[in-house]
């Protein structure tokens, strides 16, 4: 049986990949995708913990996480589309007007 810590470490790695993706990519779509990646990393931890502890709570939590991830993606994409339709660009460096 693989000890549960390995799953946590894997989840941590996934999470950092997501964060790096968030920071590096200039493109809003990729930003949203990296957020999805982070949420999946969290799912991994929940399932691993639930498997180790033998209770089902973790898995219930995963369902909620997935639905919430979907909502965020939906809202995020909606905003990106309205931004594109109005201003023709979805690059993040366009979003610099609010600063200081």
């Amino acid at each position, binding site marked *: 049986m693989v000890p*549960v*810590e390995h799953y*946590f470490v894997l*989840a941590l790695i996934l*999470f950092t990949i*997501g*964060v790096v993706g*968030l920071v590096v990519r200039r493109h*809003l779509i990729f*930003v*949203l995708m990296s*957020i999805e990646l*982070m*949420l999946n*990393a*969290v799912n991994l*931890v*929940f399932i*691993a*913990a639930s498997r*180790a*502890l033998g*209770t089902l*709570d*973790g898995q*219930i*939590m995963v369902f*909620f*996480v997935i639905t*919430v991830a979907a*909502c*965020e993606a939906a*809202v*995020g994409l*909606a*905003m*990106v589309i*309205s*931004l594109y339709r*109005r*201003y023709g660009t979805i690059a993040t460096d366009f*979003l610099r*007007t*609010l600063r*200081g």
Partner: protein
Amino acid sequence: MVSTFTPLPSSFYQAASPFLVLSVCALLILLSGVTKLAKNSCCIFVLTNIAFGATLLGVCCLSLPGRYLQDALVVTPLSIFLQLLLLGFAWLLAILTYFSHLRGDFFRSELVALYLFVLLGMMVFSSSEDLVSLFVGLEISSIGLYTLVGYTRVTRFSLEGGIKYLVLGSFATALLLFGFAFLYAVTGSLQLPVMMAAIASGQPSLWLTLGASFTIFALGFKLALVPFQQWSPDAYEGAATNITAFMTICVKIMVLSLLIKILGWVSESLGGTWVYVLGLMSVASMLFGNIMALIQSSIKRMLAYSSIAHSGYMAIALGVMEPGNSFPARALLFYLLSYALTSLLVFGIILSLEHRQGEAIQLNDLKGLAKRYPWLACGLTVGMLSFAGLPPTAGFLGKFFVFNAAVQEGHFGLVLCAVVASVISLFYYLHLVVMMYMHAPGKFVVENPNWISLVPRGILAGAGIGVLALGTILPGLVLALLQGLFG
């Protein structure tokens, strides 16, 4: 441990009645969007009033203290008080928006429904002690707020603010979940009391610290404490004023309700480092918030940074909490109440000053306001004095109690930083007063005269008098009330 399905006791329905009423009304307003009623903002306004009224009735009379659905819904005097605060301020803000230039933009059926759902999410979050319902409540409110920021009055800034808020917000949600996951992994249960007991008894492990820290960081993000504060200026400036006001007041109430519960237990179990980190965050956000606000030219952005600073002051009280002594929590609540009342006053006035198409008010637009609109200027001055923490206002007593709590624990360093920060803050708060009173009036003129109608003036006057009264006559009463909350 398979939990068999047991029919829910009738008391649950009574306790959950406010939530049910609110969600039903929100759905009704959403559906009304289909009919031609949607065009008429006035009847939507009536519907919202009904929704608020019913929920308030539900919270006041019907809710019974108790723990339901394995702590998913915990009704205690504290949670009732917080829900009353949330509902009260949200309602007042809705009324103020109705009488302001934002009526057309805001009172579309889907936005109002969204507004009520966000409120529902906050109430769920503040009255639950189970990770699942906490997470669900938090997400309903957060995602709802992203859209409200983005779409209330669609301009380039609101979209930009909304997107930034969404990206960073979801990043924080991921952090929060990560924290919950690790806490769940270490303590084995999703119910807060069980977890807290496990933490208190168990020995500190890496994963426990990691989980708890991520949770606190995420909540720190919501409160806009320093490392996680940069979303709030953009979101506040981008959003329409009433949404900004809603965010400053209600998000803080929501987050602090959880922090008050868990920090009481968690602080000494995680050892002294915890107090140290929170102290660090509070000092950093106090100094950063005040220093950054010094040179802002737009009022909303300045108020955003000032709200970061005020989160810093509240974080002092958080840092010194310990299970035995409930005084820091009461001090925090009093500070919250005074901050919320002052924000209502200030944002209400800004709301009534704004133009339909013009962009956010700059500081120099307020030049010589006192000559033209003396009572608005007077209200704004009282608000500024309360933010600055000068005595006759509630802000001073809030700060005084927080300093009291900090000195009781002997955190002199923290208090000295707070003193330095509030002296710096004095500068830009009084700069506003200088603009209004000590300069010749500029070209700025209030565009829509209809704010002269009775209701918004009544609300603003009530808020102003409340701020002054809370600073002089009422504190004894309010403290006794807070004392009651903590039993």
